[in-house]
């Protein structure tokens, strides 16, 4: 993924943990990103990073609570920096693999019907070292804000490793649900076949999406349009390339990991019966 510098106005709009952070030398800086907690410090020409679960067992967490120093059991990652830098950028990024969306309640799309659903995708935290010379920042690490389970998209003989994301697949995105560590991604589902489309599980190729920030600092993925043409054919997937209409005054903040020029065809919908755990089908 490109690490080109974010436009300064886009950087300033980012809310929550995103942006530039000056690291202290004598203690750790604790930054909460969703359910994860990052600890960063600059010491002896190194940048050191640790991460852990923000919710300590038995602790009632209030918004803004942070543990200034990490527990003893965390492991620190260390990078020796070229010039003893003491600032890092935290940038959002979409997951590094395709995400399989599992609506909590499956629904049907009638022939020639369309439906717009919203999915909140957990973001990755990119820890970058800005270059004083103005060049591309150096990527130190990428950490998921929410650990998603692995799952397999395909059949028993071929496929791809993806993430599993249960979702409510809302028909409307309420602003209070758009937390800083989540990106709201609109999906326009179109049924161009002559049969019902039962949406039980679908493959969401987030690697091709850009991230946008609106004027309220909320993060959005670009709109994805998926056109279903029947079980025998692959679905047509198109990314709009621009911010969704709901994102007022949005500007691009992160380019896609894998840019595409135009849409593509891919197996997007699947039914739960195709891969039973016994291994006898597929």
């Amino acid at each position: 993924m490109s690490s080109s510098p974010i436009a300064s106005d886009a950087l300033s709009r980012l809310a929550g943990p995103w942006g530039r952070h000056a690291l202290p030398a004598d203690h750790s800086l604790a930054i909460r990103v969703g359910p994860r907690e990052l600890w960063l410090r600059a010491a002896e020409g190194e940048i050191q990073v640790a991460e852990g679960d923000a919710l300590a067992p038995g602790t009632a967490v209030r918004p803004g609570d942070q543990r200034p120093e990490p527990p003893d059991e965390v492991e620190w990652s260390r990078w020796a920096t070229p010039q003893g830098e003491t600032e890092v950028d935290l940038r959002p990024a979409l997951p590094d693999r395709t995400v399989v969306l599992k609506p909590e309640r499956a629904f049907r799309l009638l022939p020639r019907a369309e439906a717009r659903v919203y999915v909140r995708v957990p973001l990755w935290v990119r820890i970058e070292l800005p270059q004083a010379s103005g060049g591309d920042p150096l990527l130190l690490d990428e950490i998921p804000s929410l650990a998603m389970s692995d799952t397999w998209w395909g059949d028993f003989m071929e496929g791809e490793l993806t993430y599993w994301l249960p979702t409510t697949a809302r028909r409307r995105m309420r602003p209070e649900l758009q937390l800083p560590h989540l990106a709201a991604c609109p999906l326009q589902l179109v049924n161009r076949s002559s049969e019902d489309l039962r949406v039980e599980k679908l493959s969401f190729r987030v690697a091709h999406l850009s991230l946008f920030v609106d004027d309220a600092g909320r993060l959005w993925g670009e709109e994805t349009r998926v056109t279903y043409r029947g079980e025998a054919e692959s679905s047509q997937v198109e990314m709009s390339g621009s911010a969704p209409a709901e994102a007022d005054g949005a500007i691009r903040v992160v380019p896609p990991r894998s840019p595409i020029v135009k849409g593509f065809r891919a197996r997007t919908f699947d039914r739960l019966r195709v891969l039973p755990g016994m291994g006898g089908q597929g």
Partner: protein
Amino acid sequence: MTALELLLVAALQDPVAPETVTGFWERVAGGEDLGALIRALLLVFLGIPVLMAAARWIRRWVGEKYSLQQGMVAGKLLLYSGVILIFVSVLHQLGFKLTPLLGAAGIVGIALGFASQTSVSNVISGFFLIAERPFEVDDIVQVGETIGRVLSIDTLSVKLRTFDNRFVRIPNETIVKSQVTTVTRFPIRRLDLNVGVAYKENVERVRDVLLDVVEKNPRALMEPQPMVFFDGYGDSALLLRLAVWATRENFIILKNSLLEEVKARFDEEGIEIPFPHRTLYTGLATDPFPVRVVPPTGGTNDGDSRTDRNG
């Protein structure tokens, strides 16, 4: 003439040959046909190294672009055909007629064939292995009792490296005639864990606990869906089987981590994993068995336990 020259003469069946062979060396010694000899030597001493470098390059290029296996095949094809070409060119330079040689090669081939049936069988089996591709270089295979990673598929044999770092050579003929399991053929594998729990446990609760452990393990795939099978009633335990899928790369990690996690969780939940035991039962009509605690040897003497029948 030397014995070799006599053999060649007999094989060539060319009345001109004795003069050609012996005369050739005489002419070279006299300075004639020296150019042909030099060209032949150049072909050998320059051609072979260039050919080997080209074979290495093509093997690397095809290997990076396609697969290690295809790279190896391409390199060997180039090398073998190049050697044959150089050999024929050298013979041509030295003035040997090739047509009679081909005839001789047939006769020699028949003789060699009888003498080397096994080697020929291995070579032919090797071709079948390459064409059929039951496995490729870098796959993990099991042949009989041997499990290892394929290092190369060569003309006569397949080389494996076992997990404890031993080198195993298996003749191609053996592989073609045996059952071979390619462990890494498909991208995902199912792990079956046999779990026995005490008869007093609630099966539904155990099932829920097992599936929860799997859900929390990052290496376990959510699909294909993990399942718990109730396999039956054992002598000492209820027999359950936890079937969970992982990518082939994470299979061993999942197996190790899941075994530990299941045990830890069972301990937390108080779910008993019984060891084999026998209940001695004589029926309601009899008295209970008498039990007497016998002190260790050298301790307090509490009577002779072997003769005291009072209980």
